[in-house]
């Protein structure tokens, strides 16, 4: 079994089609949606992890692309510039996955990259702009 972290872009004409559930059934895939933003009349964007055999993943992504979905690998990650971070905590509530958290005993602000889904919400919210997008 393998997994792929990808970003899927759905054109406005496709956003009401059940693409993901179709792929999951046809190719016997597991999936975990990290972030989805789909608004009527606009492009839909979904960040997700697909799990399955290499062959099934290749076939599923080819299938989706043929249907008109644009697919990019998720290569972006969020890094914390430790020299810039002042450990204030302004980022903590905006983080949907608790990758950013305050240790209530020590008051240190911690960042766990393994929990980060690169949603970028912390980037503009950080006052000294210590949270940065790395490509």
């Amino acid at each position, binding site marked *: 079994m393998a997994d792929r972290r990808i970003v899927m872009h759905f054109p406005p004409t496709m956003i009401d089609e059940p693409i993901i559930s179709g792929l999951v059934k046809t190719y016997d895939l597991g999936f975990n949606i990290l972030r989805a933003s789909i608004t009527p009349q606009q492009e839909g964007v979904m960040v997700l992890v697909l799990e399955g055999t290499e062959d099934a993943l290749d076939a599923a992504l080819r299938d989706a692309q043929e249907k008109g979905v644009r697919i990019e690998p998720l290569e972006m990650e969020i890094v914390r510039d430790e020299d810039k971070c002042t450990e204030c905590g302004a980022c903590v509530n905006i983080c949907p996955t608790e990758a950013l958290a305050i240790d209530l005993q*020590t008051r240190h602000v911690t960042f766990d990259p393994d929990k980060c889904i690169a949603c970028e919400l912390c980037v503009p919210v950080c006052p000294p702009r210590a949270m940065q997008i790395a490509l």
Partner: protein
Amino acid sequence: MPKTYADINAKIQAGKAVVVTAEEMIGIVEEDGAAKAAERVDVVTTGTFAPMCSSGAMLNTGHTTPRMRFTKVWLNEVPAYAGLAAVDFYIGATELPENDPRNRNHPGLFSYGGAHVIEDLIAGRDVRMVAEAYPTDCYPRQDLETLINIGDLNQAYLLNPRNAYQNYGVAVNLNEDRDIYTYMGVVQADLGSASFCSAGQLSPMLNDPYYRTIGIGTRLYLGGGVGYVYFQGTQHNPTEARAENGVPMGGAGTIGVVGDMNQMRSDLVVGVSMYGYGVSLALGLGIPIPILDEDMARYTAVKDEDIVAPVLDYSREYPYREGGPLGHVSYAQLKSGHIEVRGRKVPTTPLSSYVRAQAIAEELKEWIQAGEFLLSQPAELLPSADSGQGFKSLNERPFNNGGVV
């Protein structure tokens, strides 16, 4: 027996002063009582590190050849105020480049402003300076474009009209649909978060609630160097309501401070961007409090449970000055990660770095223990609760007769 500043300084110089942080003082007074603690402890150090918008830098470049009286100055495109003598100018922390889009594409990013210029100078980075002037017989030159560096300036000092706010409101958002973008950070819709900004039990002015030892000339820790209180801060409001322990229940005392930027560190004087709001300066500040008597021991043992702050709705109540606080919460509650507002559990967002505040109180303690930092007796204390000095609002008086007075 009450102690004097001279007694305490003599002990500091002899390397015999007992110096503890405001956190450590809590346990000492709990264990030994205030009377014994006052005999044993000479100085309690405090600290805070948070955005303090009312800050800025006074700079003097030295004269150009030929001479020039700056009328307009920009530093890295950020305007400075030059309505002073020839080559003096002041750059405010919140100033933005003229071409910054502000909130035209809301929420604006505010990536660079006066506070970042100040941080760049302190970090020793070159800054692009542009100046304009009208010519006079004594100051003929009209244009200047040059790099400047803090090392080349005659004076570079922070001159901050309002710092170290004694307590502050907690910001929440009652708007059910919309996050709001404030100087208290992003406050999430429908009581989604509560921002607070004080070091609580470590905060300088919360440890001397009636300013018995803080006044004009108080030597303090500023941005990693030595600074001084030069006057009461703007909006200093000693008559704010107080709890039984004397601690104000909302924003009260403030101090105006000054300090040489050449001594400062760029990790303690940091330009910050408040999303959708603007630029501010996050600053580290610490005040040493002399334990002159038992009362000062008791005051400096104040703890987070005993300090309360008002919860204010920043979607409506604060900006439009409608209604009052939604209640009061303690810093112990704020630091637990959640507070309760209108029966709902609201996660808290700190803007003040407690770990930096601890580091500042600790560093100041080490300076005093090493005999490198003496306490100064204020030339005059700040107006206190008995002064009758309040906090006025602007009484707007429209022009009559088309402005002819």
